[in-house]
């Protein structure tokens, strides 16, 4: 029933189109095959209105990029396996020299509108809800009759409400005409209730319009200032989330360094390169899984976590045994040696994988965002926030509750005494350095989801990592946590007001001033062994 009613309505929509169920005519399709975007747009509108099932199939194929044009305006749907004539739906043999039908943004917009219109008649309420949502964002006046028709038949309350919103938005998007004042006033009131950025855009347009009735204009102005006030309140929370999320990235990058530099006292300039290797491991794991077990691809990133930890940890142990152990107690030489090492590692990666960025895939479950009230929480950032918390908790557990942690703390506090108590200090050193490198590898996995993965990845994190560890207090994990969050929050609170460049400078100045006053950072470690 719904399908039939909508089809009739769509037919009526098309100006000058045939009444009733008109079958697709050859010229409805022909715009799709041509090079002109205007004709293509007209074709899509015509097909959406009265193209029948064949038109629907062609539009769907166009969206999926399965529509191809051949010689003489022939159109084919080719989804990799089956080939059919787009006009008739009959199976055909596709010619060799097919060209995919090109799209541009305007066509994509028209296509999305046509898609939403098709889905308004779906039997699934969720699909209809999505369609109504799309039409709300579109607010195209040609969709108005279809919306009214759908509203009159819609039974599910949440879909109906969304349709009402879409209707109000569409009404307001049109230029005001005689006698529409009451309808428009109602629409303004309705959108003011809905709120959000899209409603604000529409209302701002009405409020600034010169041809609008003064009454409607004033209502829109009031609505805009009300929405603005709401948005300001939410934006405080939003910035707090951005700060936490930025802080969690800093925290992840710094935890490894908190072990190698904070606990062991090794100035490890190659720390960023361990992160970089972690990110490359993520990519290798993804590639490997795609080639062997494609079914596991969505969770490749989870598999990469332990792999990156083990690989980077292993490299860390090798570095400690072959380089760092000869340099204990010589900080300047350590600094130079690890800096040199960082350049060597960069160049090795550059020679093996090339200097260009590599594309680490973000699985679908980590893409997009979650709306919580007026908060827009991006999933990858949320995942990193949780991951950083887990890594810190895990590290705390290792340091406080395991034999290795106990031995590490003993060795840092008094190496000679620990050795006399039977602790094999070289082994503890190697494992501690490996732990730090492994943590950097974990940070690399996380960073691969938000940043670009290239041989230079590490350089952009090393300064920030040192800053976090020093600012927080060398040797104190809680200090690292507090410093990461303070720097993250500070940066994100300052950024919208004074700009990203000035915010960065301001943060550095604040850190310098603070360190001058408190040379041991926010949470200094106290004890007898520290001075020596």
């Amino acid at each position, binding site marked *: 029933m719904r399908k039939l009613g909508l089809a009739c309505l769509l037919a009526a929509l098309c100006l000058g189109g045939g009444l009733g169920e008109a079958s697709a005519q050859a010229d409805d399709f022909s715009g799709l095959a041509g090079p002109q*975007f205007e004709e293509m747009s007209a074709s899509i509108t015509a097909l959406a209105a009265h193209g029948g099932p064949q038109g629907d199939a062609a539009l769907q194929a166009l969206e999926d*990029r399965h529509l191809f044009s051949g010689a003489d305006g022939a159109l084919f749907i080719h989804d990799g396996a089956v080939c059919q004539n787009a006009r008739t739906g009959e199976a055909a043999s596709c010619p060799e020299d097919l060209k995919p039908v*090109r*799209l*541009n*943004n*305007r066509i*994509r*917009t028209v296509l999305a509108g046509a898609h939403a219109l098709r889905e308004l008649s779906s039997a699934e309420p969720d699909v209809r809800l999505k369609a109504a949502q799309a039409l709300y*964002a579109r607010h195209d006046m040609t969709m108005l009759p279809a919306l009214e028709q759908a509203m009159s038949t819609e039974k599910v309350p949440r879909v109906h409400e969304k349709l009402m919103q879409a209707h109000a938005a569409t009404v307001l998007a049109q230029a005001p005409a005689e006698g529409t004042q009451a309808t428009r006033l109602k629409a303004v009131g309705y959108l003011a209730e809905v709120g959000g*950025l*899209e409603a*604000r*855009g*529409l*209302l*701002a*347009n*009405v409020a*600034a319009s010169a041809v609008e009735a003064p009454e409607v204009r004033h209502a829109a102005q009031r609505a805009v200032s009300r929405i603005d006030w709401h948005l300001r309140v939410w*934006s405080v929370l*939003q*910035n707090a989330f*951005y700060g936490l999320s*930025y802080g969690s*990235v800093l925290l992840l990058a710094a935890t490894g360094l908190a072990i190698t530099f904070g606990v062991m006292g090794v100035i490890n300039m190659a720390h960023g390169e361990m992160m970089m290797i972690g990110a490359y491991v993520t990519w290798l794991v993804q590639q490997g899984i795609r080639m062997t077990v494609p079914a596991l691809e969505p969770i490749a990133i989870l598999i990469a976590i332990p792999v990156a930890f083990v690989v980077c940890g292993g490299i860390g142990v090798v570095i400690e045994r072959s380089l760092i152990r000869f340099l204990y107690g010589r900080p300047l030489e350590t600094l130079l040696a690890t800096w*040199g090492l960082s*350049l*060597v590692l960069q*160049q090795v990666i*550059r020679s093996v994988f090339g*200097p*260009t*960025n*590599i*594309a680490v*895939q*973000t699985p679908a479950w980590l*893409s*997009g*965002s979650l709306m919580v009230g007026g908060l*827009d929480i*991006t999933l*990858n*950032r949320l995942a990193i926030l949780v991951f950083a918390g887990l890594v810190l908790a895990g590290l705390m557990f290792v340091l406080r509750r395991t034999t290795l942690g106990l031995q590490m703390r003993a060795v840092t506090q008094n190496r000679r005494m620990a050795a006399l108590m039977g602790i094999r200090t070289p082994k503890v050193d190697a494992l501690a350095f490996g732990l730090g490198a492994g943590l950097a590898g974990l940070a690399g996995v996380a960073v691969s989801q*938000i*940043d*670009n*993965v*290239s041989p*230079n990845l590490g*350089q*952009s994190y090393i300064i920030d990592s040192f800053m976090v560890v020093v600012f927080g207090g060398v040797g104190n994990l809680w200090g690292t946590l507090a410093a990461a969050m303070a720097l993250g929050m500070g940066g*994100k609170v300052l*950024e*919208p007001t004074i*700009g*990203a*460049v000035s915010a*960065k400078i301001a943060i550095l100045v604040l850190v310098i001033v603070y360190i001058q006053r408190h040379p041991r950072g926010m949470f200094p470690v106290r004890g007898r062994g520290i001075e020596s």
Partner: protein
Amino acid sequence: MPVTMPNLSRRNFGRLALASSAAALSGALGAGYARAATPKGEPIKVGILHSLSGTMAISETTLKDVMLMLIAEQNSKGGLLGRPLEAVVVDPASNWPLFAEKARQLLSVDKASAVFGCWTSVSRKSVLPVFEELNGILFYPVQYEGQECSRNIFYTGAAPNQQAIPAVDYLLSEAGGGAKRFALVGTDYIYPRTTNQILVNYLKSKGIADEDIMVNYTPFGQSDWQTIVSQLKAFGSGGKKTAVVSTINGDANVPFYKELGNQGISATDIPVMAFSVGEEELAGMDTKPLVGQLAAWNYFESIETPANTAFIKEWHAYTKQPKRTTNDPMEAHYIGFNMWVQAVTKAGTTDHDKVIDAMIGIRQPNLTGGIAEMLPDHHLTKPVFIGEIQDDGQFSVVWKTPALVPGQAWSPWVAQTKDLIGDWRKPIACGNYNTVTKTCLSRKHA
């Protein structure tokens, strides 16, 4: 220190690579071509001044490779003036002062007849005094902010009126969505700042109000775009169609586009027009969330012409990487190198002054159709294309300028330079000639 080791051997490495690749190429082509006479005599040295390490290596390494390919090809065609060409590759390591040092070395020690190099404007500014002092020849292949016209530099990339202005015209037009509100987002250095200054004046002349223009700068390598993208989102809710013009440089683009995708901004809501994102940059990105985002260039790999197809084929054969992309600055080097070859042939010598004079008026077909001509202000005539990012990492051209656009060294949209032109022909022979007062602001070339 281990760092300097590769630098010391870089030149020899370059020669070795050149020799072996030339051998490989001539071997491959030998069967098809009637072999030209083997070039003899003192080699003509061609300097290549591109970063092979550091942050800019990602972009510049490709340009070094394309130069080696062009030189090898020229040698297989019999060299130049009957003499072989020899590439001298140096690595300025993305370090701006080192660019000047290496340029001095190329000109005074290696006696390079021409130098092809630089990417960032700051590196060009750093070598400019060296080229002017030693009277060298530099071919600069990257789109840039203009406002410069040196007798010793040939600007084979786009000036702002060959990229930024047509791109904004497209966004303002019906086909481009008819944007009425513009966010100019860029990295904080000379190219974005100058380009945005030009664009703000241009937009105002088109009737865009002050409150509808937002300018935002970020530091190099910005990786956390959360607040800026949400600012853009809020800016886009002003009730008018909004577009973003991005002069974000290099690596910062990947996290920027990722954040756009995650916050749900698609090209159909707020299109982003980028001036520094090409095929090479897209190679490191998952382009599905970016479909429909825009870029303005004078060359796209996806443009099908016989010359471009042949060039891409040769590039793949030369690099032995069948998927390696080509991009706009590579085409600029292709045009610049061939123009230089023509000019040297015309002058019959590699003498710098004679070649510089011979360069003006040289014509060389573009890879994408039309003919590039070297103008008196050392800029080229170029076609301008607007491309939309596709899900395969390529651009699909959606718009092009109806005719070739001649480059302007000095922007008419900046108050201080609106009366200036560059003309290195006699009798003006001046890089910044004021057409109103009829004077040359700097020293005239004798």
